[in-house]
């Protein structure tokens, strides 16, 4: 059952790799495969919420010998989110005409990588899936094949490859000090090890995932890459791929290295604060939509960091909720870049409200959960900071709206209908989540209790 979404994506990707993706028929096939993988993931999610985490050992090896795949609610949430964003971007690109024959296959390969790393219970396997997702992202970044996209892709590869290498080194170091690679085993061994080497490893892991997320001191690659790539790819990178960072920090920080996470909390708070302010100020001063959104992405990561630093039940709850809503926001907003028409304008407003945290858009939930976490922690400066950040994001989003949609231009051509409808569907989705948040809140609560109860992904077969 666990392998169903992975299997659909994997065989689909391999099949599509040999087909010509520029043909609409093949792109539709890719959409069908991705949608069925998404449905399989959701089905698996219902089962896991009802019956608890599941795990299996690949290839019929004994427990502890083979590589384990294990899924809990946290993995399901992130897999569903990533596949949704990937699906939206793929449908969007198909409606616009796919320009490269490998595009649908690459999106599916990225789906394999992301779903795999959310579903794995083994850190080295995590790295392998991580690289599958990253390599597809490297190729996708150059999609469009103009000089600008090549530059963006090159920068993206150089920085993120360095991040991956740091992550690989930290995995080897974990193996060195614990002798284990399965997450359950590591979580059991880590408290028995002296703290200083573990702190070094935790720092390396933090740097690796922060580079993916684009947290403040590691953000410099983000703006040129997000502005240089095509809108659908930017949506994939910020809505789906960046989830690796949030999930990785939760899985490794909250699950495997909770002691080190608590030690590093002050650092996280400082970096998160700087990120929020830096991202918001830069966004206010920028003009081009993708640049505003790219800097806004840097700011949004700051909220995730602060919630992670607060930790505990409310903190992790806020991290998950914020990461999910931020992924959807960014997917929607990057797709609206380059589109014209009143439907797009309306969708952009929903996205903008969501980023600024105004009800009834879903972003309100994310913001309120961070407020709640900060109040619970008696951290009034954080409450003020979140308020300031939201006010600034309201400012820059509506500056952008004014420039993009209020000023009528003569040479303006309305975009074709289908991409507009896709963007609108995403916006309606955000509104529905904002108006009827109970399912999302329930499943997030379930994920948090799973994270805090069992120190690592359950071993029960």
């Amino acid at each position, binding site marked *: 059952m666990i392998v169903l979404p992975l299997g659909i994506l994997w065989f689909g990707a391999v099949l599509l790799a040999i087909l*010509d993706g*520029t*043909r*609409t028929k093949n792109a539709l096939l890719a959409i069908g495969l991705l949608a069925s993988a998404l449905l399989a993931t959701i089905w698996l999610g219902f089962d896991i919420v009802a019956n608890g985490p599941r795990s299996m050992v690949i290839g019929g090896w004994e427990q502890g010998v083979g590589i384990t795949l294990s899924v809990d609610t946290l993995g399901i949430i992130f897999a569903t989110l990533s596949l949704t964003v990937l699906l939206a971007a793929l449908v969007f690109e198909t409606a*616009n*005409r796919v*320009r*490269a*024959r490998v595009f649908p296959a690459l999106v599916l390969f990225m789906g394999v990588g992301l779903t795999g790393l959310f579903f794995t219970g083994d850190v*080295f396997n995590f790295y*392998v899936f991580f*690289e599958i997702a990253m*390599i597809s992202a*490297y*190729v996708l970044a*150059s999609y*469009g*094949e*103009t*000089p*600008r996209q*090549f*530059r963006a*892709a*090159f920068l993206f*590869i*150089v920085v993120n*490859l*360095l991040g991956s*290498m740091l992550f*690989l*080194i930290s995995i*080897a*170091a974990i*193996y*060195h000090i614990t*002798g284990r*690679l399965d997450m359950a085993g590591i979580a059991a061994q880590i408290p028995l090890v002296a703290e200083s080497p573990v702190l070094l490893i935790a720092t390396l892991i933090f740097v690796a995932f922060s580079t993916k997320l684009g947290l403040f001191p590691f953000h410099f690659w983000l703006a*040129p890459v997000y*502005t*240089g790539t095509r*809108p659908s790819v930017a949506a994939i990178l910020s809505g789906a791929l960046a989830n690796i960072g949030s999930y990785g920090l939760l899985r490794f920080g909250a699950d495997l290295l909770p002691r080190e996470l608590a030690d590093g909390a002050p650092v996280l708070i400082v970096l998160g604060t700087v990120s929020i302010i830096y991202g918001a100020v830069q966004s206010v001063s920028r*003009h*081009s*939509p*993708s*640049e505003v959104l790219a800097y806004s992405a840097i700011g949004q990561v700051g909220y995730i960091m602060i919630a992670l630093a607060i930790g505990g039940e409310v903190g992790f709850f806020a991290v998950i909720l914020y990461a999910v809503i931020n992924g959807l926001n960014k997917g929607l907003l990057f797709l609206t*870049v*380059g*589109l014209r028409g009143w439907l797009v304008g309306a969708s952009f407003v929903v996205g903008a409200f969501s980023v600024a945290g105004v009800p009834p858009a879903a972003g309100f939930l994310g913001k309120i959960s961070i407020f709640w976490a900060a109040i619970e922690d008696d951290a009034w400066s954080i409450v003020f900071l979140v308020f300031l950040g939201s006010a600034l994001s309201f400012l820059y989003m509506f500056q*952008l709206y004014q*420039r*993009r949609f209020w000023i009528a*231009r003569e040479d303006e*051509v309305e*975009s*074709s209908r289908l*991409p507009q409808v896709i963007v609108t569907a995403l916006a309606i989705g955000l509104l529905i989540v904002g108006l009827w948040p109970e399912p999302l809140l329930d499943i997030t609560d379930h994920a948090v209790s799973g994270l805090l109860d069992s120190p690592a992904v359950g071993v029960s077969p």
Partner: protein
Amino acid sequence: MTLILSLAVAILFASGAYLMLKHDLVRLIVGMVLIGNAANLFIMAAALRIGDAPVYPIEDETSDPLVQAMTLTAIVISFAVSALVLALAYRVYIAHASVDMRELSLAEEEQADIDDTLDGEPEPMLDVDDSSIGESSPVGAADAGEAKTR
């Protein structure tokens, strides 16, 4: 032995990091490959134990097969990424007639200036120029025709 390996990892990583600060794209890539190899060596060093091959029947102390499997996987991955990044560097070279990082960032700045003067006006989405698609088959061209008419 551990000392020798640590020194080797350190030297490899340092040389890689030094090369990555260079302006030349090819050196930069060589630097990335060196850092990748430093990581591979680090994995080997992480559980270094000299012993027999771990094949049944086990009699004496064996070496750890897991690190070798991991290194092999990591080598394959870094090989694939190196090939990809070299191909990309070639495309960058074709596009800019240069492998100098400074000229690339100059082009990036020019692009940023263009973006600013346009004041948020994005590139048009449906520019149907097929010049960028090298391998478009006749069928692909037919699809492009469809997009034009839509």
